[in-house]
């Protein structure tokens, strides 16, 4: 086993600055993940050439793969850095920021576009208000709950967007994750009252028709969300909605 951990990190000092590669070496210790190793480097910010440099900038929060913050390319694959163990990686470990979102600095990117897409597809259950109305929602069977639960674990991490050939910085396409959320809310017993609104949002520019069916999204999702199932269902539903709209004219 190597007695050091060797990183090759693609750095960028600001959104308009030129990217460059910098290498770091740190002492090996068992059970490190990518973020815990970056934390060590942050305290000892010396590059492999022995030069003191500004600590690498990255995003993280929960450190247990539920918040979605620490997405980055690790040896070329988009994944959560906190849940990627050093012992499972070939060295040198290559870290790069996601490429489909605007660069901020080093490994940090701006994913606000994803949250805006959730707004566009109206990924919420419309309520009269959030005070108690002394009623539960309609009953939901355990089988249906299990399917909905898988989708509701989407943490907006952006890995699926990174590998989607149709999604890039200048495209209008909302991308796979928001499609999954639109379908999740359409499947709720009261959320479905407003499914037309969500379908209409997906029938316009940047909607479901932009999906090229590459099926990359489902391969990289850290939560194993069957995004392509949701996309297929939305495809059928939007077609049905298109016909209904046609006859309603």
């Amino acid at each position: 086993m190597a007695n050091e951990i060797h990183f090759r990190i693609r750095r960028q000092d600001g959104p308009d600055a030129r990217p460059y590669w910098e290498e770091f070496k740190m002492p090996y210790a068992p059970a490190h993940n990518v973020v815990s190793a970056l934390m060590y480097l942050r305290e000892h910010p010396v590059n492999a050439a022995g030069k003191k440099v500004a600590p690498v900038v990255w995003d993280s929060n929960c450190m247990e793969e539920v918040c979605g913050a620490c997405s980055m390319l690790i040896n070329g694959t988009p994944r959560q850095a906190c849940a990627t163990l050093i012992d499972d990686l070939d060295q040198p470990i290559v870290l790069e920021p996601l490429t489909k979102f605007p660069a901020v600095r080093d490994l940090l990117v701006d994913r606000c576009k994803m949250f805006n897409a959730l707004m566009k597809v109206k990924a919420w259950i419309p309520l009269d208000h959030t005070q108690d109305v002394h009623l539960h929602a309609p009953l939901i069977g355990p089988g249906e709950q299990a399917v909905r639960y898988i989708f509701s674990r989407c943490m907006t991490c952006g890995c699926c967007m990174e590998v989607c050939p149709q999604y890039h910085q200048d495209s209008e396409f909302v991308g796979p994750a928001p499609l999954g959320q639109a379908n999740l809310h359409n499947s709720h017993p009261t959320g479905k009252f407003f499914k037309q609104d969500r379908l209409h949002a997906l029938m316009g520019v940047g909607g479901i028709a932009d999906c090229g069916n590459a099926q990359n999204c489902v391969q990289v999702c850290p939560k194993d969300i069957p995004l392509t199932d949701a996309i297929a269902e939305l495809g059928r539903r939007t077609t049905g909605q298109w016909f209904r709209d046609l006859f309603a004219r």
Partner: protein
Amino acid sequence: MADQRIIVIGGGLGGLWAALRMAEAGVHVDIFSLFPVKRSHSCCAQGGINAVLDTKGQEDSIEQHIVDTIKGGDYLSEQPPIKTMCEAAPGIIRTYDRMGVTFSRTPEGIMDQRLFGGVKKRRTAFAGATTGQQLLYAADEQVRYHESEQKVTKYEDWEFLSVVLDGEGVCRGITAMNLHDMKVHAFRSDAVILATGGLGLIYGQSTMSTNSTGAAAARVYQQGAKFANGEFVQFHPTAMKGHDKNRLMSEACRGEGGRIWVPSEKGDTREPREIPQEERFYFLEDWYPTYGNTVPRDVASRAIVRVTRHMGLGLNGQDVVYLDLSHHPREFLEQRLGGILEMYTTFSGEDPYTGPMKIFPATHYSMGGVLVDYAKDEQTGGMQKVHPRNHVTTIPGLYACGECDSGYHGANRLGANSLLSATFSGQIAGAAAAAYLKSLKKSAADLDEKYFESERTRQEVINQELLSPNGTENPFALHRELGEAMREHVFVERSNAGLDKALVTIKELKERSRNIHLDDQGTWNNQSLSWARQVQDMIVLAEVIAKGARLRDECRGSHYKAEFELKVPEGKFEGDPEYEEYRAEWKANNKEWMKLTVATHTEDGPRIDYKPFDASILAPEKPRDYR
């Protein structure tokens, strides 16, 4: 008067609920958060949320929820708010259901409920083992709806630095730093709600997210808000150790039948599955036959430390014990606990379905926090649901809710009560702030600019000092040393000698933190600068925690000092003379110590006073006893 606005700091469950209440009341809300609110630490809550739905044929009652919460907290909190919270809990669950939360279901499609610690009834609603994530997302979605209606504005990637006080000491706005260009701005606001979560990072490794530093609470504390019960920090019994954090293995593991054990023989190095039942020491079941593995967290954590450090029975002599679910069928575990068992596998490389997990207590939750008030409802004995005094801090116009406040959990929080208190306190604080706005005679928009400009300048100066190339101290190293001292001396077991050492170390760290050198001197997205500020503030709160602990010469809830322990006479129960003697001693101790610790900031460190509170619902007649 100009349009009124409210600022909420923090977008976890507490902050989002406060925002929802105010948006629905027609007040514009600005939410400030260090990161996109959907990534808040609430998403780490796993096991569930308590509410009496009584769907398990166990004759559960709201009265029992109130009693369990008060006793779980070892009688150290204002009781009227607890009553109102427990009464509101079923309605909160119904609302979450309407919001689309994917709660786990019974075969009939009814919400399922599981057992949690310190409780005998199945009272915890859950969504797999990621309940917090599901509740957070539901609240996030509702807030996003209001955002789409322009009733809410989010400032994500902004760091709260301070409140702006007018000439009369009333909170009229905030200063905050844009974490991209690192510029400080002042914002006007008619009320401010602090919903900034916990402070586990003060202990270095904890179960908390890397942003849960307590810095925001420390900042308002240094501006005059009082901080209560700082010494009461919860150590969760079942966490896996890591370089970066200690990952929580939910109390739901124990609630679903998980058993904690060590080999009976010291130095037994056999593989766990080769150790026969009769050679295993199930110490919680042995010591607490009535509650067994589901004793409250403080009791379980102390028992684990006793086993590893005093009896030498930790695995390989280390601070590690087993948490074992492997007697359950895989399908059952996948369905009920899948999310966290997946996490255990990822981080340990071991399979919790076929063998036990290796765990030890870790810093998890702060029962203490910014001191908040409430208005009692004399009719019901609870708290009034809408009143401007609810959840207001000692700074007028500044409210606090969620983990950063000091309500509800006394000296020890019961599992699955935090998602409840975060939700409930957010709702109450939002309603309170909206009511407060109606009583205001002048708007923050009309206030003289000088108050905002002088506070903004003060904050800019702090940044400039930190960015000056003169210092020598590395803020990341300071934080590591702070965590080491806190874990060494202010952990599950405390002693006055150890706490004195901690206080000396903290004073030294405070001195050194005035001489920081940053390896990043840039002005674009400088995480080192933001971190250095937070480290300075963590050190301030560490002193509040350690000093409160040093001065509280008793054992209560999570705060334990062996030298002051009142031991329950072994094998004796109510009615036995030895037990009654113990009870009399316990009551005498309550006379002295059943008071809230209140810290006030001074230049020389915290001044500690004590405050009596309302215990009109459950008088302390019975010591906690989970045997």
